[in-house]
């Protein structure tokens, strides 16, 4: 579908699309394009997941887009399970899933597993990684891990107003180039930047914008070699698996959870072309 293509689309920067910042600040424009659906999502065209470190404003973004009022609080670890809602934008309907805030996807705590399983088995059409613009470096750790799992990513540089108050300048173009996915500065509390975020989500979901995600480059040579060999083996065993490299990485680490998913065929079902409803079914059963 999208993995083969390589060039970063020029509209990775939000102001490149026709509805620029000037329109975006206009409430009529916003209201005309976004329809908040609350929890009333029976059918959807795309599934969007919200991932990010704790306390980066994920729940605020979630509430802004869905019109729901999930409780938000200024402290890490507030959302421990998934919340779901929906919105309509540009004639398409989206299901939005707010994942628990985590610093990484590598440990075994329940909240990290919920987030990781959704990214892997839920196969969202777009993953929005909410990054705290005041703590870019630390937040990037999770963003890079997500980019290893999926290439359909939009980075939301949230709390940009706070970053400016702290005297930080974030160059979202540079950021977007380095990560190979669109990066949109937002201040979700006041709603700034959300129209651009919506447009970026829609572009990635529809495939209009093709990403070229950053992959780790600085592994030691021995590691790189082992990783390449194992990735090829995974690809040979399960042709079309979208995250072969990440699966290889987990296997090298000795992740029993992933080995098990490989054995019982759960991972095999994620191959491109498998029916999307199936993975939703898996997800629902897993969360039950």
């Amino acid at each position, binding site marked *: 579908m999208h993995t083969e293509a390589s060039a970063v689309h020029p509209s990775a920067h939000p102001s490149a699309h026709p509805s620029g910042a000037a329109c975006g600040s206009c409430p009529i424009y916003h209201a005309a394009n976004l329809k908040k659906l609350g929890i009333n999502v029976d059918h959807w065209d795309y599934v969007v997941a919200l991932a990010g470190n704790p306390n980066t404003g994920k729940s605020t973004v979630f509430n802004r887009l869905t019109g729901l009022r999930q409780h938000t609080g200024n402290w890490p670890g507030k959302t421990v399970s998934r919340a779901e809602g929906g919105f309509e934008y540009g004639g398409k309907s989206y299901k939005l899933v707010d994942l628990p805030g985590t610093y990484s996807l590598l440990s075994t705590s329940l909240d990290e597993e919920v987030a990781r399983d959704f990214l892997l088995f839920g196969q969202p059409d777009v993953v929005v990684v909410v990054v705290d613009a005041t703590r870019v470096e630390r937040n990037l750790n999770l963003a890079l891990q997500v980019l290893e799992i999926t290439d359909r990513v939009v980075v939301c540089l949230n709390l940009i107003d706070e970053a400016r108050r702290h005297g930080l300048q974030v160059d979202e173009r540079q950021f977007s180039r380095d990560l190979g996915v669109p990066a949109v500065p937002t201040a979700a509390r006041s709603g700034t930047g959300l129209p651009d975020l919506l447009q970026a989500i829609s572009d990635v979901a529809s495939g209009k914008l093709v990403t070229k995600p950053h992959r780790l480059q600085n592994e030691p040579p021995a590691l790189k070699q082992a990783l390449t060999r194992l990735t090829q083996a995974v690809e040979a*065993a399960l042709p079309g698996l979208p995250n072969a490299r990440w699966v290889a990485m987990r296997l090298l680490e000795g992740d029993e959870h992933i080995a098990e998913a490989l054995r019982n065929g759960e991972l095999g079902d994620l191959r491109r*072309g*498998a029916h999307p409803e199936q993975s939703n079914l898996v997800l629902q059963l897993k969360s039950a």
Partner: protein
Amino acid sequence: MMKTHAPTGPVQPSPSPSASVEGVLALAQGLRQEVGSNFHDQIAEAMYHDAARIADRAVTRAGETPQATLDRTIDRLVTSRVWGFPLMILLFTLVFWLTIAGANVPSGLLAGLLIDTVYPALHAGASAVGLPWWLSGFLLDGVYLATAWVVSVMLPPMAIFFPLFTLLEDFGYLPRVAFNLDHLFKKAGAHGKQSLSMMMGFGCNAAGIIATRVIDSPRERLIAIITNNFALCNGRWPTQILIATLFIGALVPAHLAGVISALAVVGVAALGVLLTFVVSWALSRTILKGEASAFSLELPPYRPPRILQTIYTSIIDRTVFVLWRAVLFAIPAGAVIWLSANIHVGGASVAEHLVNLLHPFGLLVGLNGVILLAYIVAIPANELVIPTILMLIVLVTGASSVGEGAGVMFELDSGTGTMALFHANGWTLLTAINLMLFSLVHNPCSTTIYTTYKETGSLKWTAITALLPVVLGFGLTFAVATVWRLVAGG
């Protein structure tokens, strides 16, 4: 497992998938030997390296800003070794004092409306349409009055407390509290994140137990679950606030009564925190042995709270939610209380028999039969303790001139009326103090017990969570009563 493995659509046929999967796993096993055990560290290092490079290219930092300096100044103060704890106590006392002082008037107004006006009107209506006495008694005196009492006594304090608490949360203060408490948890052999689930427990223990999901070690998570009940949940404040106001506030001159009552409530909450540490420590050295694991806690920047929005959402999401739950439980409980007071066996009501049965043990631990029965009736919701106690006293002492009749829950117009009732039942300062202690240390409500079962999936740990505090509570009240009697020479 969950579905059959039958790929559909244009998937290339792969040669015997299970065989090649085993091949991949074998290769992985072999390569793991080659790469060595520090794979995780190597990957993490590569990631940190990339993150640092990308961040460095995209973010430029101007000099130190006033905002950052202000944040650091506040942090130095609220997390300081010297000032951290006093400030914490001061802040929570202020919150409780505002709640106690502010809730009186609206509580009185609501009681006047629901109980003095609507209730007689409903009775008049019932007799006009000719409802039999037992039906109107059951519906109005039991179900309606229980519900009305819960609404009038709980809504105002919650409508004040929750927004205040949410403002502190929005501002970013709670993680600092967690920071202050962290090293104490570590000393107790528990996980530092337990301070976060404990803070949630001050709102609702069931929510606090769900919040323990952030703790990844099962051992430390169980400690957090078992001890969450020592965080004084919102259903227990009405008891604490009423008893502190009537008995503790009365010990000092009127102008100090509000502050002293608030301090008494804070003292009980602080005792709960202390018990959390002591019990965590004991658990981590007996049935849940192990080392505490490290974790990093991010102190978020202070954010100016959006006051109006906070008040709105905390009233809608928390106050109404908790109130609705209380009402749901109050309805059947009110019915049960009315029935037990009106079904007579051998010359006395079922309720009287039970009170007499429990009374000797109650006295032994500085409580009484009425209180113990009230705690059994109120297992579904702690909010029901005070109304049940009042109703049972009327039954047992026969002080029917105060109440509305057998099995009728009522709200007394003033504190002095309630006080007269307590005295008629032989309550002393010891009874009041022990009731406050027992309210802190007793079994969790049925919702919390059920949540514990769902989170642990184990009957054993659920039973420990439910029973440990009851045993501790009786031990504590018995000790206090014994010392009290020795000192008082009784």
